[in-house]
């Protein structure tokens, strides 16, 4: 958490040219002053928290309660304790969606981050039209899930999609992207990759630019090739950034929902075989196709626990790294 305010009469006073003070006498004004200082933080966080509690927290807590009920939309809730959780862990569809979430997550995260790293490296050179390149990389990030999925769904068409046409040049038969098992997952991974690669590349680029030039110079003096410099200077310098993007992308992958939903034309079954039914879709299907809100809430909470697990993993990994003394947490 935040760095503690140093004790009074600390080096700061000296630093900014004040003589260290003793406690001032407590007049009304200074009492008010102190009161204000005490109350101020609450004032700052109150608008946020009021809104947050009403429209953020309440729905979430309420969802937790719903998960303990048999609640079919349109009928009253009936308390059933952990029945929904029992159902979930006995449900093959749950394990299917868990597995699909993982595979699509890997398919979209790994290439995405590798590409982003390579791109960042290229963008780090001095060049003309540098900004054009950077902006075009970031454009997909600004496109809505709906728009990008719509375009890619056409590109991945079975009978007259662009990608199948390209494949036909090299004599590959038309691929039924949407209905195939791995192919549908690849298609969705492509959409995710297209949207997020440029964004991650910029973050890596920022990390690269903060690596001290001296290290490169020293490496060059030692006769290190460009590749060796990249391996032994750039990568270690980027390690914290890379770790973080890995974890963050993983969390994003866990919550993947819009792309598979729209890729399936709004169908929550994630393909006839459920081949791209992620946890998010599974939840949506239970809640909004089958109106089993209790089960939907349960899936949501289990997903949440998974994500928290990933975050803990993140902090665990973070502990390994040598810390900057001022770094938070």
């Amino acid at each position, binding site marked *: 958490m935040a760095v503690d305010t140093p004790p009074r009469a600390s080096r700061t006073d000296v630093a900014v040219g004040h003589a260290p003070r003793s406690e001032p006498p407590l007049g009304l004004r200074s009492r008010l002053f102190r009161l204000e200082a005490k109350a101020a933080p609450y004032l700052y966080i109150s608008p946020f928290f009021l809104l947050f509690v009403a429209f953020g927290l309440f729905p979430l807590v309420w969802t937790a309660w719903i998960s303990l009920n048999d609640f079919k939309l349109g009928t009253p809730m009936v308390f059933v304790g952990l029945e929904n959780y029992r159902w979930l862990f006995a449900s093959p569809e749950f394990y299917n969606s868990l597995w699909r979430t993982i595979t699509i997550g890997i398919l979209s995260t790994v290439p995405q981050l590798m590409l982003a790293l390579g791109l960042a490296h290229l963008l780090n050179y001095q060049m003309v039209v540098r900004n054009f390149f950077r902006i075009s990389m970031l454009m997909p990030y600004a496109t809505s899930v709906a728009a990008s999925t719509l375009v890619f769904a056409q590109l991945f068409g079975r009978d*007259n999609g662009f990608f199948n046409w390209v494949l036909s040049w090299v004599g590959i038969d038309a691929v039924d992207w949407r209905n195939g098992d791995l192919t549908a997952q690849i298609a969705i991974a492509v959409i995710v990759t297209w949207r997020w690669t440029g964004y991650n590349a910029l973050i890596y680029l920022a990390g690269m630019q903060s690596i001290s030039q001296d290290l490169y110079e020293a490496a060059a003096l030692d006769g290190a090739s460009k590749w060796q410099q990249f391996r032994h200077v750039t990568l270690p310098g980027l390690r914290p950034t890379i770790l973080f993007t890995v974890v963050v992308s993983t969390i994003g992958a866990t919550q993947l929902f819009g792309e598979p939903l729209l890729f399936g034309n*709004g169908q929550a079954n994630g393909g006839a075989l459920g081949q791209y039914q992620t946890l998010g879709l599974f939840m949506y299907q239970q809640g909004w196709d089958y109106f089993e809100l209790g089960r939907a809430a349960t899936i949501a909470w289990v997903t949440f626990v998974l994500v928290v697990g990933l975050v803990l993993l993140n902090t665990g990994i973070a502990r390994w790294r040598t810390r900057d003394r001022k770094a938070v947490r």
Partner: protein
Amino acid sequence: MMTSRARTAIAVMAAGALVALAGCGGEEATAAEGGADGGSSAGGESVELTVSLFGTFGMEEAGLFDQYEEENPGVTISYETTQGEDTYWPALLTKLNAGSGASDIQGIEVARIRTATTELADKWVDLTQTEAADQLGEYAQFKQDAATTEDGAVVGLGTDIGPTGICYRTDLLEEAGLPTDPDELAAQMGSWEDYLALGEQYKASAPEGSAWTDSAGGLYNAIISTESEIYYDEAGELVYDSNPAVKAAFDLSAQAAADDLTAKFAQFEDPEWNPGFGNGAFATIACPSWMLGYIKGQAGDEGSGKWGVTSLPGGAAGNWGGAYLGVPASSENQEEAVKLAMWLTAPEQQEKVFAAGGNFPSNTTAIDAVADTTDEYFSDAPIGQIFGDIAKNAPTQILGPDDGVLKNEITNALLTIEVNDVDPETAWTSAQRAIDNQLG
């Protein structure tokens, strides 16, 4: 109707179009400003009625709302439609539950009517206790039955129904040497097996990339639409896995899929299904009356005269889809709302809607009135007569609360046979497992 362009008998199964989520119907039914109890009948007081529908009921398109406002000074109608029934319904459920937010008139898809007459029975105005009582006898029997609760209350007035036939591409059938006259074609289809046999003939001489029918799921829906008992029995028990009719329909559709007689589309979901109407990807399609408008829209002007329509094999009568208008109990203008709903579903208005978009009337007077209608687009087929006969003979289907889940899983299983080469028995078993897990 295209009840939501047909998520037909089952909402969940064929989502309308691009996107899933969609908004909910109208805003809070604002009682007439100051209208004391809302029942401000013809006292010249002004009243605002809110109408929330889904998909394309064809009422707005036929100018009915404007006409009503004109004929009833003081009434203003604010109309609102949500395209996807699959998102319209959950939103409505939430509002009915909350006891506020529903409109004065809400559309109900036939796949939901069972839920409306059971779990939600107390959320609707019982129309037998209103002016509409006299009009209730005018709708097709099966239509009326489905909207009646155990206690004899009626929750909705029928808008349209989905008498089902077969639509076909006359040009493609001709090329393949098959008959193109509706009667001749019907004569060659004494049964669903004959229909598949014709498909084999078609396949033998059809152009590359043109299949006999669009999808196993559509075929299944057409076959099952002619049954009275499907997934539930009279007592409300789940009988889908012991009902021979279901398995027979499944096996037949699976057969068609395995024999490559289908174009392997998921209806309403597959983006390439739509262009298939125009580019000859399939020669025939199971055709509820509301599909006529859909075909016209997708195949466009160049498809005019290249299509025909005939009855289902063996002259079986089936119904696929349709909808109702209900008045939520939370409405503050019940009396006025019932009046409007009566007017909207009266013969004259249903005829107009049919003329405008092909949604077939559920009101028997209107059914008779449109009997002479022919459709140029469908090679002048006597659509009024074809669909009218089917409508009169369609069985009263026993509907259940989870028909949607069942239909969804079964059509899904058929799709896996088509596109993932799953063996039919395996597909059936997975569907059973999924259904049991979902409903268990």
